[in-house]
């Protein structure tokens, strides 16, 4: 009880503080109520068509509601939406099982998951086998596509980046220099340029008639690029582990790889975790660039919805769409960063008790 009172007292402890408090209060009073008016009280929540939003200068949540299926699934056929839900649910269950104490060998289990799950998800989502109706990747879209690209990139960049980081620290000069070359080239290129190469120029280098799926090309470009970024973050982690740790492990009779896998890498990952999460969040946000490759991710579907002539009824539709997009990205990225705080706490030596 005393803490809020102490806080309030601090707010007016000096004339300057009182003035600042007053200015902030004034600012809040002039911005917060109009915002809630716009977003909640005057907003259109229900209705049948775009006409219900016409001439209302407030958020049009009806627009989001009527297009919610598209925002989630893009052009994925409605009768097959269960496949996306099943895929998401399986992934979630697998992740929870992985982080529960039931699973003993976490490294092995997570490696198995990163290999098995993408294959499973790919078969389930793409279809064409086991009696599943084929769904061309051109029909994929919405939040589902955003998550597919982001999760694939994070999941593939981690092991690939770890390999690159180890290669870069290798004592074999050819391996180390190749890794340095690769990392520097990738980090020196803009992702847009790489995507342009993969989407527009790649078809020049294959014989006519050969077609590689555009989504596959995009995913590969994302993996190649982000693995290099991830490698540097992980290398930072590895270098932060004192040399004594490795030497102690060797003196216990462990081989080089055992020492790395059991002593150095776990500590390195723990040290690198904030950086890894940082990269993951920026991967999440940079997925919106795939609009350039002609694919409609979450933001692309929203932008595409704005050009439906039926919804050209005023600027409130555009404001609602971008506010909603910002909100969804914030929720996803904020949960990612909270999750990393939780993991850090769990992994820290104090939290382990």
């Amino acid at each position: 009880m005393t803490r809020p009172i102490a806080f309030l007292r601090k707010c007016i402890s000096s004339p300057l503080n009182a003035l600042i408090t007053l200015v902030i209060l004034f600012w809040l009073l002039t911005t917060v109520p109009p915002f809630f008016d716009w977003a909640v009280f005057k907003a259109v929540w229900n209705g049948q068509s775009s006409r219900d939003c016409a001439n209302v200068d407030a958020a049009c949540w009806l627009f989001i509601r009527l297009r919610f299926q598209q925002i989630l699934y893009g052009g994925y056929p409605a009768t097959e939406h269960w496949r996306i839900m099943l895929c998401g649910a399986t992934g979630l269950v697998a992740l929870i099982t992985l982080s529960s104490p039931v699973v003993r060998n976490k490294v092995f289990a997570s490696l198995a998951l990163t290999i098995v799950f993408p294959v499973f998800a790919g078969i389930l989502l793409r279809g064409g086998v086991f009696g599943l109706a084929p769904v061309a990747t051109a029909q994929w879209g919405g939040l589902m596509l955003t998550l597919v690209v982001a999760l694939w990139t994070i999941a593939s960049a981690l092991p690939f980046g770890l390999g690159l980081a180890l290669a870069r620290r290798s004592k074999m000069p050819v391996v180390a220099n190749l890794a340095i070359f690769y990392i520097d080239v990738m980090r020196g290129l803009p992702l847009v340029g790489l995507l342009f190469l993969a989407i527009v120029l790649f078809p020049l280098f294959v014989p006519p008639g050969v077609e590689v799926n555009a989504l596959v090309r995009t995913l590969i470009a994302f993996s190649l690029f982000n693995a290099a970024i991830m490698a540097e973050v992980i290398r930072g982690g590895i270098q932060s582990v004192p040399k004594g740790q490795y030497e102690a492990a060797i003196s216990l009779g462990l081989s080089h790889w055992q020492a790395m896998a059991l002593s150095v890498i776990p500590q390195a990952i723990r040290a690198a975790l904030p950086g890894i999460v940082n990269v993951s969040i920026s991967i999440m946000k940079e997925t919106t660039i795939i609009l350039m490759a002609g694919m409609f991710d979450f933001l692309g579907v929203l932008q595409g919805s704005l050009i439906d002539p039926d919804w050209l009824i005023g600027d409130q539709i555009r404001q609602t769409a971008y506010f909603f997009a910002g909100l969804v990205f914030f929720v996803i990225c904020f949960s990612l960063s909270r999750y990393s705080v939780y993991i850090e706490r769990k992994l820290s030596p104090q939290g382990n008790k």
Partner: protein
Amino acid sequence: MGLAEKQEGNVHFKSICMLSASMLLAGGVAAHAGTLADVKARGVVRCGIGPNNPGFAFRDNQGNQRGFDIDFCRAIAAAIFGDPNKSEFHVVEPRDAFTVLTTGGVDVLTHRFTWTFNRDNGGGAEFTQALFYDGQAFMVRKSLGLKSVKDLNGATICAAQGTTTELNVADYFRQHNLTYKIVTFNGTDATRLAYDEGRCDAWTNDRGSLASRGQALKDPSQHAILPETISKEPVGPVVRDSDTQWAHLVRSVGFATVAAEELGLSSANVDEHAKTSTNPEVKRLLGVSDDLGQKLGLQPTWARSIIKLVGNYGEIFDRNLGANSPLNLSRGLNALWTNGGLLFSPPFR
């Protein structure tokens, strides 16, 4: 608007890409069977569509892809497969579109590109015909009481950056000895917002675009479009110029929809006419008395499929841009030549 966003500055880069493309592909192309064979083998025709053209390519509330450009792509699929759903849409940015087409990323651009000399002869691509005629116009506030573009002397004009709209204004105003100040913005939406906020006296874009985007102004009834049209913007499909068979096919699909409207054939009555019509041209077009489809590598019923499954030109226009759409554009130049418009089809014989 979208169609006018022709990044001419990229021509140099594009020609380098195309040069390297042609060098790389030179060996392979000779033995290559052609676009139609590829499309048939793939089972789907791929069309490049624009990212930002209301009424031309968009998704409705139910998630269906609709629009004028979408319907022409579906018409091509109907002609080849007898099924308009065997079409796939790839969104391509205007600056990449020609490179994507010439490298085989799509089979045809139904993209709202203006047919210009440079684009037609720039290497690698060709326009099959004009299927939509537009032109640049000006939108002003009614309260200003302006009657013609001549009244805009000394005005501030909002336009989208890097488009030909800017160049057209310069040409037109210089030609008529008028002074003006142009303010450019990145994209159509930003331009509309600036105009709506009163940053300029007039907003210039293609007439169709002004009509559609104008719906998003705060109070559309306070604005009017001036009568003059200061540029020609003929819009049509683009194909690779290395494959004449495919170019003929795409051109014939467009003409079939126009001819159908001329001959009074629509999706509702085409089956009836196929059975009972005594008009020799109808019988030829619908494959009753002649097999025109064979010359395109298609079934005799190719045109009948287009008309039945997608519609004639008038139906496509009305559904997406005209009276049956929120845009409510009048046919104007896009009426049949018999009604004072520019649309006609060569005789099907």
